[in-house]
């Protein structure tokens, strides 16, 4: 990794090299120091995150906040700044990973490493905020691809709990929180379920016999939450209050068309205004409904197979484009992908760009759109004055695995160490085999 950086940062100040100091022990990197003085990055292709690009760009930031952005010709004052020359390399707002279990799960097959599913159908009161493990070895692998912010969400049951948005750098969860408790996650019951037929042994779709019962459980919960006075104390009902009074979002997880309609109508019945659809595999089938309700969608199944054999082979790749074109606000989430593979978030967007979206719009799906959908766009999601200096430099187009090489990154102006266990092991064995050749 340091070799890579040496190759490409020859023109940059020794600054980067100083900061990307390796830990010789294979544990997660040390959290970065606060920004110590104003920095100006010059000569970058700046991808704002809102669809715009500045070809020969300048960005300045101080105390973790962006202070100016423009092109070299704009005459931005860089006096007293540490100057970093990028010579045509690309500067991006940090990617925002929506709906992930990052920090809650380490090894999928080992129960002891999972803090994802709490027991029970109704868990409005549980909070990912306090379980997020800043020392997860998966975090460095995400940062390495430019993912600097994540919405960490519990899963399971009908009401899974509340998610929080984290900066992917910090000593502990309090330190890493960007926005606590952005919303509660509701998994709408399925109308149907897949099961293996006892007769034929083949998979078949049958009605979910528990649908009405599960729906009633949710109604009862929200009815009691609406009339909740605090007496007697009920932690779940209390936890739902912000959702009912507009202080937090309701993230509705639903994939099938009818489920989407039923779940959103349910939310409206209880006057919940701030609703986000997560998953929404069938969103295109009910796009008029989603538009009418002005609900944003966190779409997740891009690197996935179409659900029906007769669908177009590229249906999953094309769906973000079609949703966007229909006028729906779309972000891309991680939840449908194995946690460790969610580091491919930029390439999900890249694939969507290969199938209809223009590249800057594709980028906004994992930057500004996600930030807006999660309610953190005042801080992250685009490179604009007043927002956090949370951004990274890539040698080339960061949505394309052929050219994505993340060279350095800042979270709130702090120059973070991109090096993780994987890079450490790479160097160890690269050097071993190099010596054998000698």
């Amino acid at each position, binding site marked *: 990794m340091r070799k890579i950086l040496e190759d490409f940062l020859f023109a940059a100040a020794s600054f980067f090299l100083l900061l990307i100091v390796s830990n010789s022990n294979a544990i997660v990197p040390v959290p970065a120091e606060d920004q110590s003085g104003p920095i100006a990055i010059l000569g970058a292709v700046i991808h704002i995150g809102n669809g715009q690009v500045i070809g020969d760009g300048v960005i300045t930031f101080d105390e973790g906040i962006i202070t100016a952005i423009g092109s070299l010709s704009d005459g931005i004052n860089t006096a007293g700044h540490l100057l970093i020359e990028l010579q045509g390399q690309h500067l991006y707002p940090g990617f925002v990973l929506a709906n992930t279990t990052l920090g809650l799960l380490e090894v999928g097959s080992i129960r002891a490493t999972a803090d994802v599913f709490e027991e029970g159908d109704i868990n409005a009161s549980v909070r990912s905020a306090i379980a997020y493990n800043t020392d997860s*070895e998966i975090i460095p692998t995400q940062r390495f691809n430019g993912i600097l912010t994540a919405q960490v969400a519990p899963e399971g049951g009908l009401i899974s709990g509340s998610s929080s948005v984290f900066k992917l750098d910090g000593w502990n969860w309090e330190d890493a929180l960007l926005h606590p408790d952005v919303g509660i996650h509701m998994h709408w019951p399925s109308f149907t379920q897949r099961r293996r037929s006892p007769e*034929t042994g083949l998979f078949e779709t049958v009605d979910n016999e528990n649908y009405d019962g599960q729906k009633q459980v949710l109604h009862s919960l929200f009815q009691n939450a609406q009339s909740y006075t605090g007496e007697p104390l009920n932690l779940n009902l209390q936890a739902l209050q912000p959702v009912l009074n507009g202080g937090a979002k309701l993230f509705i997880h639903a994939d099938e068309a009818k489920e989407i309609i039923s779940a959103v109508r349910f939310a409206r019945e209880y006057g919940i205004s701030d609703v986000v659809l997560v998953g929404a595999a069938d969103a295109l089938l009910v796009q008029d409904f989603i538009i009418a309700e002005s609900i944003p969608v966190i779409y997740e199944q891009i690197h996935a197979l179409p659900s*029906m*054999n007769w669908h177009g*082979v590229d249906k999953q790749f094309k769906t973000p484009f079609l949703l966007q074109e229909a006028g729906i606000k779309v972000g891309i989430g991680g939840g449908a992908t194995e946690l460790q593979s969610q580091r491919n978030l930029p390439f999900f967007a890249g694939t969507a760009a290969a199938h209809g979206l223009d590249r800057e719009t594709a980028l906004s799906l994992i930057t500004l759109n996600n930030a807006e959908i999660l309610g953190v766009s005042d801080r992250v999601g685009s490179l604009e004055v007043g927002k956090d200096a949370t951004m990274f430099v890539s040698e080339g187009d960061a949505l394309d695995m052929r050219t994505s090489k993340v060279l350095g990154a800042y979270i709130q102006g702090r120059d973070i160490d991109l090096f993780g266990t994987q890079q450490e092991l790479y160097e160890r064995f690269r050097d071993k*085999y190099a010596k054998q050749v000698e």
Partner: protein
Amino acid sequence: MKRIDTPVDPSVKFKFARFVPTAFAALLALLMAAIANAQQNQTPNGIADDRAGAYALTNANIYQPDGSVLRASTLLIREGKIVQVDESRNVPNGYFEIDLDGKYIYPGFIDIYTEYGIPSLERESGGGGVENLFPSDQAFNVNDAIKSNFRASTTFVPDEELRKKYRRLGFSSVLSLRADGIARGTSALITLGDMNANESIIIPDVAAHYSLNKGTSTQQVPSSLMGAFALLRQTNLDARWFDVQSPRPFTDDSLEAWNANQELPQIMEVSNWQQALTVDRVGDEFETQYVLKMSGDAYKQAELIRRTNATLIVPLNFPEAPKVEDVLEAEEVGFSDLKHWELAPFNPKILNEHEINFAFTSSEANQDFWENIRTAVRNGLPEQQAIAAITSIPAEILGAADLVGQLSVGALANFVISSDALFAKDARLLENWVRGERFVLDDDRDDRNGIYSLNISSVNSSTNRADQQFEVELSFAGNKAAAKILLEGDESREVNLELTDDLVSFNFVFDESGNRARLVGWPDTGGWSGNGRAPDGSRLSWQLRQSGDLTVNANEQSNESVASGLPAPVIYPFSPYGRESAPEQTDVLIQGATVWTNEAEGTLVTDVLVRAGKIAAVGDNLPSDGATLVDGTGKHLTPGIIDEHSHIALFSINETATNSSMVRMKDVVNSENINIYRNLAGGVVAAQLLHGSANPIGGQSAIIKMRWGAPPQELLIDGADEYIKFALGENVKRSRNPASIRYPQTRMGVEQVFVNAFSQALEYGKAWDNYNSLSRSQQRSTIPPRRDLVDETMLEILNSERFVTSHSYVQSEINMLLNVADSFDFNINTFTHILEGYKVADKMALHGAGGSTFSDWFGYKWEVRYAIPYNAALMQQAGVVVAINSDDAEMSRRLNQEAAKAIKYGDMSEIDALKLVTLNPARLLHLDDRMGSILEGKDADIVLWSDHPLSVYAVVETTWVDGIPYYDREEDRVLRQQIADERARIIAVITNNNSSDNQSTAN
């Protein structure tokens, strides 16, 4: 002692008997006598009652096997058998004549695939995670799914209700089997008269049965479809080996029975046409021609089914229409399901046109059997063939043609009497005779449908009531009589009616009082007559006389014409994006593309000529020579992607025996799997379809090309080297199942599995070498060693006739397998997954093992914690031949993107990165002499990309396999439109059918 299936109206029984109840009573007595005569195996509780049961059925149209009819002929039966069939009206002395007045006689129908009277076994629910590794502790086969010792006749118990149902459909005999196990033992041929078990079974062991489903066996193996094929093969071998030994080496009643059963017809039940083709090949290996019990999909590959030469048993269970009324639910309906719904009723027609011999079974159609067989005839199955399929053909399959299935002298007196030619409109089955025993199915009362006038007069003149006349409509439907009083206009008044053979009782609102007259009566020479009481209690006398005919419902007259063709063609594969015929192999000249040769020339802008499926030339300004021109300007042409590790297009993935080297993935290839097409759309031209990783020694690979539309065997790459899957680590230790007891449970045990398997194989080889070194005469006096499919496969590995692809994760186990291979003097060809390969890449290179890995998977289980995305680059650095594979149907179609990650992680050159998914997997599969690069003489398996092939923005324009454009982006648009149109058309047919059904119900 009721001997008839339905209440009989004696007055309409026969012409001569019409309105003569006494004659019927005499007849009934005779019938009962005939049955008593048959029951000779039990001492009667009374005095002997032997009867001849001699009948002459005269004036009949008697059906002949060639489809012709003997007009006005006579059938003589006696003691349950046919005595004579001739075209006279000869009634010898001692025969009771029944004049059939032009009705039709057909041989009694045979259902060749039922479980009638055989108690079914309850399947034990799977108990926890502890594997059941051993068979039940009895002297039967080593595998509990081999139930060849079972004899259906030993558990048969007549089922009165069920046989009545079968008789109503016209069946007089059925084959009864117990559908349990891979070898299911023998079935019995059983007649459906009211006899006891002893008499009912006419052939106790009529056929031997097999399937690919282990049934109630709880033994762990076989747990897969390919395991079932393997067990079938191994049991054949075991049985032959067992049979030549005297004394037997051990007792195995299943193998004894297996051998004894070989003389019987061998009936194999399969679930689909793919299984049919595979099992027929297994049959060929052992000179067994199976009769194939199909599932109704044979039309999808009728020509291939014909080539098996198998006789089929075909169910008539046409699928129900998919639910499409709700537009959102319709989205979830499969394209193939819609097509199958429409075409399945043409299955018999298509099979017949392919000259395939087949019998029908009602077993899955149940009471829809007649409706469906009529549909089949209306759809183009010749009537003669339909009749043969339930008479002569099943009889011939069972070698019982002298007993059943035709009306010939000496055969059982099993026949049905039909009101008209069997498939004539409104024809009804009237009677079913089983071994001379008569069962009336339908009283043939329909000819009494009509408009009647009901005349009612007072008996007692004191009321001085005037005679009254009503108009009554009388109809018989399904043997149930109904009547109503017709009033002015369309009005009518309901009548409560009970009408039996010899009595009629009815009541209706008689006058303005709103009260009812109650009448009772009997059949007389002109209709019915009788007495009753008026609402005021006064006595009435009445007669009912026909005055007119019923008007026929116009709807029912239509749609009896025979369809001439199919509503839509069969497509290949029977799947969305299937085609009526494969795209053609044409000569193509791709001009001006950036060509990634994977040869010394590297990447250059030039022309590529494809001729006869091969790359004919690579160079600038090539002449087209009539080849189709493709403008490659601005595009990229690469060798097709080869996925070294895939599980697409398989019906089954994992067998679970610790060593399942005998199972063959090529037995379970599903050529209809949509992922083949999706792979093509991602530029994939070939893949190794591997066994799963449930056990250390998995199964034999199938290496296929994506020839979308070709049947399974034609997907296999001809002459490709043979491979086998090994696996190490957490999966084979069954780490996810805490209750598992299957050896091995540690990596130490995993090593011993290999050492043991190869040691055993060497012993096995030695035993055969010894045998083969004997002289001919010595061999004749020596029992050859038992052939063992596991050992044979392991020997192939040791002899470098089969190559290993081993699933592997951590460095210790990789190192272990290298050492085991070295100690047995063979090479591990490929490590797959190999996520810690980077730690021992130097050792792998020294051994000569390749590595086929994921680009960036890690952390999903403990053993992949230190998987790193630099693995491919590091292994390559150490000199290992490296491929990137998918192990995943979705990722498989983006392997170009996965290869590109080696640039990001490890700075691999672009040319080397592309080789990770093209030339290198070709090398690992020993196919690099014909695939993997763009070189004159190699197979034209190439891909044209819109953009740089390693870029996320690249999409496939065209994928050629053997020079055939199996995927083309332009054609794909056309196919999508065709799918959309075809869906819309079929959905419209279904919704129209449904709405007309609803209308007729409303009427």
